[in-house]
Structure formats: structure tokens, C-alpha cells
């Protein structure tokens, strides 16, 4: 059993009143709060250690470089990558996906297919639309079943020798669906295509083993994993990253620059142009250590309990309509209440100190599918409690009365 009180004590932000009430933070799918160790890691870096990396021969620069590279090694271990040069630091999942999608612009042609799904976050839709526009490739979409599962039969039908890339989310931020990534990967590889998994909602909640999965590209954000904003990861198999054209040009990513001919640096530097978010990357290690120390399965178990409890309690509300009831779900509950606009619910809950997310969750096609303008979403993290869910249910009922 975990001691949630002890865990909460490590998160300074949680201990505040909002609109006179104890804060209940259920917007973890958007961004988690940060434990003191992460906040301290940033302050310590700037107070003791700050310098630009990779080029300086002086002590501070070397120390900063070593710490920066330590995080790379930690990420490698965290997702079980084969080599640390397969870990590219970006500014977030969106940046990671764009890096790959931009590279594919020149690798695809008319007649090639990219397959995404109906449940993707805009960050895993728009880059591919832009990629198709430039390359002439066609974007195909895996539909979802009404319960929120991917239509796997439809997926198999979409796959063909024309398929060059599949880009699907591991866990849906709008529905909570855990997709069968192993199966998606196997099927994709059967037709000789590559697959990118958007892991933004997965790395905070589930063990990811990129070698075990045999996934080609995997993307995620530190800020959803108790880590700092402005840091993301692109994992890619070494051979594929070597094939992928560079994304941004600049310092760090070159071997040699002349006006006649510029050659690019080896991995991972080829994809890390410019001064990175050094403080953020270094502090991200503390966030991963926080997760590893607790154990990702402990976190998942706790969050599962919360999802189940919340689902049960929400059912006591009249007019409750769950959006997304996939067989396997993680860490969040998405719903609407008959006759109520999610925005109105969100505003009134906020007045009662409760932060949930309402709206389209950057997944408008999903909203289109369910013919709703948005949903209300409670998304959980390791520091949330059943008592908080109780407060939230009471608040929803009060809002319902006010709005009725």
C-alpha cells in the first residue's frame, strides 16, 4: 500500500485553497504537478551548475553536459532503449512528432499512405496532414468503435503495401482508451511500414519498453510525468533516425559548416540544434527517478482504483453519459451530463476549488464522432485520493442543481 499523504507532502502546489476551498487537482492529463525534488533540481542547476553544454572545456560546462547526458541515460533505461543516442530531447510530444513528420515529407511520395486514428490528439493529426500536403501521400484514418476502442478490423483493411507510416496514440487523452500497441506494431511491420506511437498519456501511467514493443518511434512529454515544461523525448531506432533527414539547422547539430557543404553530426546531436532546455532536461531525471522509486505499476494500480471509484460514484448522478468505455482504460474518466454544457460544469466546479478539464481536449474528431461539443474529464495522478473524488461528485451535483 502506498501512503498518499506522504506523497502529497512532496507536492507543494497541492496544499492551497482555491476560491476558499481545498484545491482538488484533476487535470493531470493536461499537466501533472511537480514534486519538490524536481523543483529543487532546477534551482540547484541554476544556482550551482548553469552553463551551456557540449562545447565548453570549462568545469561548469562539463558538469552541465554530464548531467544533461545523465538524463539521456535515465530516459534510455526508463523506456529500455538499446542505446542512449536513440533518445532525442525535444520541447515536447508535439515537437517530437513534428520532427518525424517533417522528415517524412521528403521520404514519401504520391501513392504512399500514412495511417492515423480517429482518436488522435491534434498533435498527432496536424503534422501528418502537413506532411501529406507537401509529399502528396494520403492520410487514412482508423475509425473507432462507439465504446472508444480502435476498430482493429478496419485497421487491417487500411494496411497495405502502400502504407509507409502508422501514427497512433498509446493511450487516448480524451477517452482513456489503452490501445493494443503490440498488435498495432506487429500488423504494421507485416506490411513493411514503420510505426510511431504517441506516448504522451502513456509514460505517466504504464511501463513502456520500446525494445520489447519493437516500436519504431515513440514520443512523450516530461510535463505530464511530474517533470518540467518544455522538455520532450523522441525515441527512434538508431537506423531509422540515421535515415531521417535533420529537422532544425543550427549549432550542435553539425559536424562541419562551410558555405559549400555542411555535414551533420551523429546521433543524437543531429536532431538537437541550438541550446536546449538544459535546466528542464536535467530536472526531468528527478521526475523519472520519482516515478521509478514509487514504481510505475504502483502508480497504475492506484490510478486504476481511482478510475473505478470515480466511475461508480459518477453513476449516482442523473443523466450521466460516459464518453469512452473501452475495455482497457487508464487514469481518466470523460463524461457529459444530459442537458448540461461541459463548460458550465467546469466553471462551477472551479468555484468549488476543483480543477477538471472541459472542452474538446485537442481531439475535435473524437467530439465529432460522439456528436458532442466537448466533455468533462477527470484525470488522475499518484497524489489523488478517493476523498477528492467524493468532493468532486458532491460539487458536480451542486452544479447540476444550479444549472437545472
Amino acid at each position, binding site marked *: 500500500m502506498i501512503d498518499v499523504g506522504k506523497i502529497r507532502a512532496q507536492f507543494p502546489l497541492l496544499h492551497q485553497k482555491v476560491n476558499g476551498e481545498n484545491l482538488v487537482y484533476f487535470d493531470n492529463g493536461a499537466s501533472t504537478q511537480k514534486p519538490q525534488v524536481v523543483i529543487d533540481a532546477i534551482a540547484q542547476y541554476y544556482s550551482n551548475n548553469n552553463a551551456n553544454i557540449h562545447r565548453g572545456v570549462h568545469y561548469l560546462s562539463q558538469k552541465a553536459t554530464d548531467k544533461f547526458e545523465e538524463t539521456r541515460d535515465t530516459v534510455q533505461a526508463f523506456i529500455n532503449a538499446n542505446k542512449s543516442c536513440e533518445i532525442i530531447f525535444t520541447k515536447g510530444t508535439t515537437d517530437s512528432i513534428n520532427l518525424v513528420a517533417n522528415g517524412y515529407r521528403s521520404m514519401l511520395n504520391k501513392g504512399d499512405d500514412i495511417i492515423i486514428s480517429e482518436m488522435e490528439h491534434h498533435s498527432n493529426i496536424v503534422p501528418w496532414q502537413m506532411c501529406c500536403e507537401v509529399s502528396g501521400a494520403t492520410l487514412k484514418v482508423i475509425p473507432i468503435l462507439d465504446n472508444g476502442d480502435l476498430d482493429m478490423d478496419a485497421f487491417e483493411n487500411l494496411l497495405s503495401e502502400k502504407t509507409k507510416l502508422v501514427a497512433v496514440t498509446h493511450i487516448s487523452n480524451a477517452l482513456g482508451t489503452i490501445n493494443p500497441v503490440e498488435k498495432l506494431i506487429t500488423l504494421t511491420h507485416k506490411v513493411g511500414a514503420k510505426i510511431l506511437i504517441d506516448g504522451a498519456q502513456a509514460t505517466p501511467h504504464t511501463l513502456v519498453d520500446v525494445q520489447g514493443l519493437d516500436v519504431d518511434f515513440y514520443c512523450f512529454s516530461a510535463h505530464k510525468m511530474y517533470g518540467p515544461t518544455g522538455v520532450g523525448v523522441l525515441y527512434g531506432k538508431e537506423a531509422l533516425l540515421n535515415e531521417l533527414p535533420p529537422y532544425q539547422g543550427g549549432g550542435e547539430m553539425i559536424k562541419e559548416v562551410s558555405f559549400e557543404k555542411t555535414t551533420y553530426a551523429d546521433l543524437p546531436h543531429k536532431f538537437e540544434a541550438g541550446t536546449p532546455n538544459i535546466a528542464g532536461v536535467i530536472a526531468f531525471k528527478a521526475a523519472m527517478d520519482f516515478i521509478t522509486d514509487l514504481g510505475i505499476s504502483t502508480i497504475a494500480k492506484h490510478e486504476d482504483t481511482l478510475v473505478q471509484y470515480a466511475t461508480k460514484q459518477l453513476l449516482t448522478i442523473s443523466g450521466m453519459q460516459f464518453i469512452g468505455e473501452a475495455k482497457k482504460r487508464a487514469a481518466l474518466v470523460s463524461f457529459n451530463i444530459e442537458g448540461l454544457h461541459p*463548460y458550465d460544469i467546469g466553471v462551477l466546479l472551479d468555484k468549488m476549488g476543483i480543477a477538471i478539464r472541459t*472542452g474538446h481536449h485537442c481531439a475535435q474528431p473524437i467530439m465529432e464522432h460522439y456528436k458532442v461539443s466537448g466533455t468533462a474529464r477527470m484525470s488522475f495522478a499518484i497524489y489523488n485520493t478517493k476523498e477528492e473524488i467524493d468532493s468532486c461528485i458532491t460539487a458536480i451535483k451542486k452544479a447540476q442543481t*444550479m444549472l437545472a
Partner: protein
Amino acid sequence: MGTIVAIQAELVEEFDMFEDWMEKYEYIIDLGKSLPMIDDKHKIEDNLIKGCQSRVWLHADNDNGIITYTADSDAIITKGIVAILIRVLSKQKAAEIAKADLVFIDKIGLKEQLSQTRANGLLSMVKEMKLYALALKDR
């Protein structure tokens, strides 16, 4: 019809009487529930202001420099605030609207409803109301 300044003062007084946020929001919700505040024929794509979460339809009529706004929203609270904004700015002279300083928003504690988050579309609505007035004021 009072001046924009006078109506704002009125509103501040009214809102001062509420004991807590609940009374205040109950009042806004009541406003939001009132009859449609816009003719159905104006509820068209062209008049739509898209917040990320709630949507606002805004229509303006100009009668000799006096502007009448009608509007609606799909969310009740947004609609209630739309009603308040209309009460302050509608049926006023374009020049007055253009230069109006909407101090009441802060004073009645609705600042968060017109914040930079692009959620409800209200900030864009106010901007459009003012832009419309600005375009007319010197005619």
C-alpha cells in the same frame, strides 16, 4: 437608457448585494436561461465566435450610430455574461462603445471569464463589439 458608465455602476451595485459566488452565479445562470437573445436568422457561421469550449453568436445593428447588439451562446454561464455585456454596450453610441472602459468586469469579479484563455470566446466577443463600433464611430 443610462450611459455606459452609469450602467456599469448599476451592475457593480447589484453584484455587491450578492453574499457569495453562488448567488452571483445563480443570477448569471438565470440571465443565461432567459429567452434567446438573438434572432435565429443571425445564428449563422458568419456571426460565430469560437471559443475552445463555448461558442458565441454576435450580431450588430447600426441605427444612425446607435448600435444594438444581439447575441447567444451554447453554454449557460457564457450566455449569462453575454447578457450582461449587452446590457452595458448595446443601444449606445458607436463612439461611446469604442472608448468604453469595461471596469465593471473586474469589480464584479468576472475577470476570469474574460481571461486570456481562449476557452469561452467572451474576450473575442468584446473585441468584436468594440471593433464594430470603432469602424462606425467616425462615419
